[in-house]
């Protein structure tokens, strides 16, 4: 495993991970996120990446797969909406040449209908591609689309089937979920009880602080592992997702009403008073 990693690793990539990597973790390749996850996702886990539109779910999911390829772990991106052509184009803006990875049989973008993904005959839609490229990672963009094809009561059972299909094949999956509920006062990830089916939940959320829109990332759940519980700010840069420091001076971010913590307010008042004194 280590040998193939060094063989396939891009120049400079190994520098991001000096020393011995944490055994048995599936690294996202985003250093700060891996630190938050105490080394990466647990192997074979189903991870839900939830957030409202424009929060960076697709970018983060693609970055996870691209970094996987660099670590010698082939990946598959399943999309129900966008055509592969558009995914290639968007990825290229971040410097990720998905077509080249496909030519090397290390990556596949699969575009299909959710109803076909749910077909449960002897042949599954993904059987051939799983056999061809032997992926270690797979992204479904998005699980929310399945809702259009199944009754709300059946959604949990169908999602469970998709998750089990991937788990039994040893694939670590990231399932995207469009979650408008993460903004505002009432906080829930899904309204169909999927949070219990997945092993890990990473939530992305836009937050308004002092009249500017910023983005926050938080790990809400991680079965069988400790993780960073803080809300971290992140940006979408020309190289992908970049995670910044925690929102330590604010509270109420998840509920949608961020305000400065009392100690910070006191410090501001104190600074203001001492400045006034100096001027006087």
């Amino acid at each position, binding site marked *: 495993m280590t040998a193939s990693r060094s063989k396939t690793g891009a120049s400079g990539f190994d520098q991001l991970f000096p020393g011995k990597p944490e055994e048995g973790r599936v690294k996202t390749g985003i250093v700060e996120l891996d630190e938050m996850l105490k080394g990466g996702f647990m192997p074979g886990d189903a991870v839900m990446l939830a957030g409202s539109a424009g929060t960076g779910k697709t970018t983060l999911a693609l970055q996870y797969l691209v970094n996987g390829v660099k670590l010698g772990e082939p990946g598959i991106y399943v999309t129900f909406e966008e*055509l*592969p*052509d558009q995914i290639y184009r968007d990825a290229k803006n971040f410097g990720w040449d998905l077509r080249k990875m496909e030519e090397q049989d290390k990556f596949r973008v699969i575009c*299909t*209908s959710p109803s076909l993904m749910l*077909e449960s005959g002897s042949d599954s839609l993904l059987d051939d591609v799983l056999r061809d490229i032997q992926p270690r990672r797979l992204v479904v963009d998005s699980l929310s689309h399945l809702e259009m094809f199944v009754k709300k009561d059946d959604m949990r059972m169908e999602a469970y089937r998709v998750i089990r299909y991937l788990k039994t094949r040893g694939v670590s999956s990231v399932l995207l979920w469009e979650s408008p509920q993460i903004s505002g006062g009432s906080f829930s990830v899904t309204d169909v009880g999927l949070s219990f089916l997945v092993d890990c939940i990473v939530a992305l959320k836009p937050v308004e602080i002092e009249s500017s829109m910023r983005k926050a990332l938080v790990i809400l759940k991680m079965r069988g592992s400790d993780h960073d519980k803080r809300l971290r700010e992140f940006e979408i840069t020309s190289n992908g997702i970049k995670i910044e420091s925690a929102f330590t001076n604010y509270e109420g971010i998840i509920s949608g009403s961020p305000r400065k913590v009392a100690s910070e307010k006191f410090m501001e008042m104190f600074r203001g008073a001492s400045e006034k004194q100096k001027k006087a």
Partner: protein
Amino acid sequence: MFHRNPGLIDTVDGVARRVGRTTIAVISDVRELLQLGVLKQKRIGNSEVVFLDRSKDRELLESVANHLKTVRIGGEK
């Protein structure tokens, strides 16, 4: 469509919807590509899906490129 989107796996209805056309409008093109072997067919549950045969697509592109090269060399002579 399939060359630019090699990972597209869908029913003929689904393919038509993605290109903004009706099934009737695309069915003859799909049949022709199936006959050429560029597209393959597979049954998934109750649905028949079509998808690109990547190696056949590569093979055809190479033969077209070789043909164009030959024509060009012939023209220069």
